C-alpha cells in the first residue's frame, strides 16, 4: 500500500494482509539498492501471526518516490516519520545490511519507539572497498555485479536456493539492476560514513538479535563482534555456510531466528 511520508508517495508491503488496529507493528528495512521484496517471505509469515507489517521502500528505492537520503541518520529520521504516518507508537524493527544500520540508529536515538531490534547481515562500522565505491560513484554496472558477488557465500554461487527453482544470483542481480542512477553509490557511501554508530550501542534499550552469516564477505563476522559486545541485551544467531545476503540464502533460518524474539 502507499502512504504519504514527508509529502512523498511511499510504498509499504503489508505481507498481503490488512493492518489490524491496535496490533503491534513490525517494520522491515531493506539493504543497499534493494527494496521490500527481500522481506516477502518473512513479511507474509509475521502478517499471518497478526503483526502489522511495514516493509518499507526507502525514498528513491523500489516503489517509493523522492530522492535518496544520503546518511544513515537521515534514513532513521525518515523511518520515524513513516512510523508516525502509520500511527505506529512502537514497532519491532528489522533491517538487513544498510537497513540494519538504519534500524540500529532508530533504536539508539528513538529507543521508546522500538520494542525489539533485529540486525541481519550487519557490522558497525560497515566499510566499503574503494574499488566498489569508485565503481558505484561512476554508476558502472560492475558495481551491482560486485555487490551481488560479495553478498553471497561461495557455495551460494552454485545455488541451492531454499525457494524452489530460484537462481539466487540472478534474482538479486536483477533487483539491484532495478535501482536508479546513483542509488547504489548513495547507499554504499551512507554505510561507509556511518562511523559513529558503535558509540551509540549502549543507548539501545530493546532486546537485540544479530543474525550473521558465517561466510559473509561484505560485513565479515569479525567486524560484528564489537557490536554484539556493546549492545546491552544482544544475542547472536550465526548461520553456517551463509553469506551476507541472508534474506536470499537462508530465508527459513532467518525467519526462525526472528520468530524467537517476536
Amino acid at each position: 500500500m502507499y502512504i504519504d511520508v514527508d509529502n512523498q508517495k511511499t510504498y509499504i508491503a503489508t505481507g498481503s494482509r490488512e493492518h489490524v488496529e491496535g496490533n503491534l507493528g513490525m517494520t522491515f528495512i531493506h539493504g543497499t539498492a534493494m527494496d521490500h521484496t527481500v522481506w516477502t517471505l518473512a513479511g507474509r509469515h509475521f502478517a499471518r501471526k497478526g503483526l502489522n507489517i511495514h516493509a518499507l521502500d526507502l525514498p528513491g528505492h523500489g516503489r517509493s518516490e523522492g530522492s535518496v537520503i544520503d546518511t544513515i541518520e537521515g534514513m532513521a529520521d525518515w523511518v520515524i516519520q513513516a512510523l508516525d504516518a502509520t500511527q505506529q507508537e512502537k514497532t519491532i524493527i528489522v533491517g538487513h545490511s544498510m537497513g540494519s544500520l538504519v534500524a540500529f540508529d532508530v533504536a539508539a536515538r528513538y529507543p521508546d519507539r522500538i520494542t525489539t531490534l533485529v540486525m541481519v547481515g550487519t557490522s558497525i562500522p560497515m566499510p566499503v572497498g574503494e574499488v566498489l565505491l569508485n565503481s558505484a560513484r561512476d554508476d558502472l554496472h560492475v558495481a551491482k555485479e560486485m555487490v551481488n558477488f560479495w553478498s553471497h557465500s561461495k557455495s551460494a554461487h552454485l545455488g541451492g536456493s531454499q525457494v524452489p527453482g530460484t537462481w539466487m544470483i540472478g534474482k538479486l542481480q536483477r533487483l539491484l539492476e532495478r535501482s536508479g542512477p546513483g542509488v547504489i553509490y548513495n547507499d554504499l557511501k551512507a554505510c561507509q560514513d556511518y562511523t559513529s554508530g558503535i558509540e551509540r550501542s549502549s543507548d539501545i534499550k530493546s532486546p537485540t538479535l544479530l543474525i550473521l552469516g558465517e561466510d559473509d564477505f561484505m560485513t565479515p563476522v569479525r567486524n560484528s563482534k564489537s557490536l554484539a559486545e556493546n549492545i546491552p541485551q544482544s544475542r547472536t544467531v550465526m548461520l553456517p555456510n551463509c553469506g551476507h545476503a541472508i534474506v536470499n540464502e537462508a530465508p527459513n533460518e532467518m525467519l526462525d531466528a526472528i520468530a524467537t524474539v517476536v
Partner: protein
Amino acid sequence: MAKVKTFEFDTLSNHAGHRPDKETGSRAVPIYQTASYVFRDSDAGAAMFNIERGGHVYSRISNPTTAVLEERISALEGGVGAVATSSGQAAVYNAIATLVDQGGHIVASYALYGGTHNLLEYTLPRFGITTTFVDPNDIEGFKNAIKPETRLIFGETVANPKTEVFNIPEISKIAHDHEIPLVIDSTTTTPYLMKPFDLGADIVVHSATKFLSGHGTTMAGLIVDGGTFDWEATNKFPQMTDKYEGFHNLSFTEEFGPAAFISRVRNEAARDFGSCLAPHSAFLVLNGTETLSVRMDKHISNTNQVVEYLDQNDMVDWVSHPNLTNHPNHDLAKELLPKGSTAVFSFGIKGGREIGQVFIDRLDLFSNLANIGDAKSLVIHPASTTHQRMSVEALEEAGISEGLIRLSIGIESVDDLIEDLENGFRAAAKALKK
C-alpha cells in the same frame, strides 16, 4: 576496469543448483521420488502453503530433484528462476497461459516446431486466443501484426527444420516498444550456443527432451524467467500486477519483484494445469546438462562436416543451414551464434518424396524417428510426419517441401555418418534412374 569473476558455463552446467546431500554425502543429485513432504509442525505447514518459507509441499508444485534442474538451467541462461514441465510443449503452453487471457493475441514466427504451430493455430483459438504468423525475416511484419490485445511475441532461436535464425535483438525492441515480452523457444540452440536473455528476450522455453537431456530418453520442458520485463509499465498484464484472488489477493509484481512471472507460473500454472516433471526425468536431464558443452561442440563440428558434404553432393537440390553463405541468415547467425548455429537442419533430395523415402530407408546409423537433439543421429520426412497437420499453404509458407529431409546430427564418428549418408544417396540415385 574492475571485473567480477563468476563461475563459468561448464562449472555451472555440472554444479549449479546442487549442494552435496548433507545426510548421505551423495555427490550425484538424489532422486526424491516422493509426492509430498512432511511438515515440521502444523504451523510450518500453514507457512509453506502461504509462501512464507522456502521448501516443498507437493511434487506437482515443486520437488527437490526438479528444483536442482530448474536452478541449473536458470543459471546457464542467466535468468532469475525456472519451472520445469512434463514436456517442452507443456512449457510453451504454460508460459502462454500465464500471460494471455481469453481474447488475447499472439504474434509468432511462422517458422515453428509443428507442435507449437498446432497449439497456436488450432487449439488456442478454442480458448479465445488467436495468433498472427509472420515471416521471421520480415522484421516490420512483426510490428505490423501487433494489435492492442497482443500480449507476446513468440519465436524459435533457430527454427526447425528450415533453420531460420530469429533476430532477437531487433524483434525484442519491437516487443518492448509495444510493452509486451518476447518469448523464445531455445530448444535447438541451448544456452551453450546462445543466451537469449543477453540479446533481449524476456522469457525462454525449452524442450529439454532434446539437446539438454541429450540422449533421447526423457520428456521434459522448462520455462525460464529473465526477470527483466517491466510488467508494471503497462496495464496489459493484470495477472502479474493486480491482486490475485486465487492466492489470497497476492500481487506477483509487488511481492516477488523481478521473479514475478516465474512465481505466477509456479503458483498458478504448475498448481492448476499440473504438467509437472517427474523427479527421475529431472535427474536424467541433469545428467545431460553435465556434458552439454562437450556434446554441443561435437554436434556442431559433425554438422559442419555433414553440411559441407551435402552441399557438394549431386543428389542434393539444396541445403538449408546458416553455415552456408547462400542462407538468408548467414551473417545474423555468425553474429548471434558464434559457436555454431544448429545441428538440426534440412536439405532437399532430387526426386522428391518417393526418392526421399528410399534414401531414409537405406540409412543404418541415422534413425528415422520424430525427435531431435539425441546423441545419435536422426532423420525424418517432416511433410508426412511432424508437420503433417499443417495445410499445404502453411507448409509452403514454412518452406517445407515434399522433398525436404530433416537431419539431427549426433555425436558419432563423422566419417561413419557421411558413409551412411553416402549409402543412402547411392540407393536414391539408383531409384531415380528407374
